[in-house]
């Protein structure tokens, strides 16, 4: 068993990046598909 060294702030930063990143992914992907939509 390995000893675990933990920095909690790293976990929260990664968590925040995931929330923001998936929001941007939704925004950009939807915009790209909507651009090419059939009139």
């Amino acid at each position: 068993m390995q000893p675990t060294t933990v920095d909690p702030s790293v976990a929260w930063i990664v968590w925040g990046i995931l929330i923001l990143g998936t929001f941007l992914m939704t925004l950009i992907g939807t915009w790209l598909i909507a651009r090419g939509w059939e009139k």
Partner: protein
Amino acid sequence: MNPKFLSIPTPTVSMVIGATIGVACLLALAVFLGVMAKKQWKSFDEYLVGKRDIGPWVTGLALTGSYISGWAFCGSTAVVYTVGFSGMWFAGIWTLVGIIPTVWLAATKTRDFAQKLGAATITETIGRRFESKGLQTLIAACMLFFLFIYSVGQLKAAGTVWYAVTGLPAVWCLLISIIIAWLFLVLGGYMGTQWFIAVKGGFLGCVGALLGVWALIYAGGFGHISDALMAQKPALMALKDPSLPKIGMTQLFSSLVGILATPVIFFTMSVGFPHNVTRFLGMKKLSRREFVLLCFVVWLTAGIPVMLDCSSNGLVARMIFGQNLLANKQWGADLAAPMLAWAVGGTGLLSVYLTGLVGAALGTLSAMVFIMSANVTRDIIKLWWPKTSDKSMLYLGYFLIALFLFLPFYFTLQRPPALLAIFMGLAAMGLGAVFFFVTVVSYYWKRATKLGAILTVIYGTAATLFGGWAVLGRKPALLGMGTMEWILIGGCFVLYFGGSLISKPPSEKLIGTLFPARASSKGA
């Protein structure tokens, strides 16, 4: 029990009354929507798919509702409560990486393919896409297998929350759940299910966001959560916990191979789940504005609520209850979500949350059982014996719905799974791996053939059975769950594309119907 932390409360009169009123309202709503939807269908086809005129709000909320299951609201919090931050990868932090591409890739294509092929179910759509009755039958059997396993966890979630509030034995919790589900499935068919799941999806989105934000405020913010959990056990705040075994289920928390598999699991699960993709069968033809609205509705209701539920909620529950919930041998960590609602918001929030949670379990279960019933009636019996009357199919469908609700009910009572998320994990992975290729990739790759699809279905099912033994059944485990996901996806990929390329392409007539020239297919 550790007296430093809160313990599971004894049910009080106000908790019983609050939960009873909430669930009674849910039951009344389900029956009302079922009765209203009964006026909307007049034939077996309309019972199965409605009139293909449902707009983006109901479709988006229904997709959220079918995806946010009892597992998402109960099991995911339980995983993080048990192992800490490293559990969030598997618990649902990738939800949007799955659910939004589901809209992008499957919404308009599912609707268009089903309409062009005159299909009323996803199985029928795939069978006609590949011009094969044999494949349609094989897929119906495969779906039945996976959905049956997956449905067991839904009942456990419903039983868990009812027990947590009322203290009544599980048999009553589960019996009430299946009677509710049977009633509105029989009355409302596809439309009733779609409406009920949509209302539930909207409600869950609001309640999930409310609880997530409330729990963070109650805990005093990120710093307080970190301090409290570091004092309990530092590994609870680690993004990867190498102290856990690197084979078996815990590979998803302890190793990079396992953690990297989790976004793939969530992507293929969401895009491949038949009960998710089925939500688009009854959708109207969307304008650009309506498509953007559909994406927004799904992001709003399935995004933030689930991401909080599968991460910070489990951590705050651990901060408040320590390991005390694990002392309950029957339900254990699955009580983390409802107990968190009670701890931060008292009886009021608990009642609202539990109503949503019972709705979550019932809604997703209903969506799956409806597909299972149609797998037999439409995709096997009607397929091979087309002269069977619609009335016979309807009555058989009513019986099958009762049967498919009863079987997981019995199985859950006789052998309750230890941890909801663990039990359901592999069935969900298999379902996603097989149907991601067989359904959605087949919408885009015109060269896909029935040989590729058949090989994928057979391999995916066999690999899932092997994985169940190798990852969860064998002691000690032979493989990690993440490794198993790579074996599943890799094998399905090779067989789907390889099998298609070595066999005869689909007919020109089919290609012409489903894959029109580029100019007219824009926007799909």
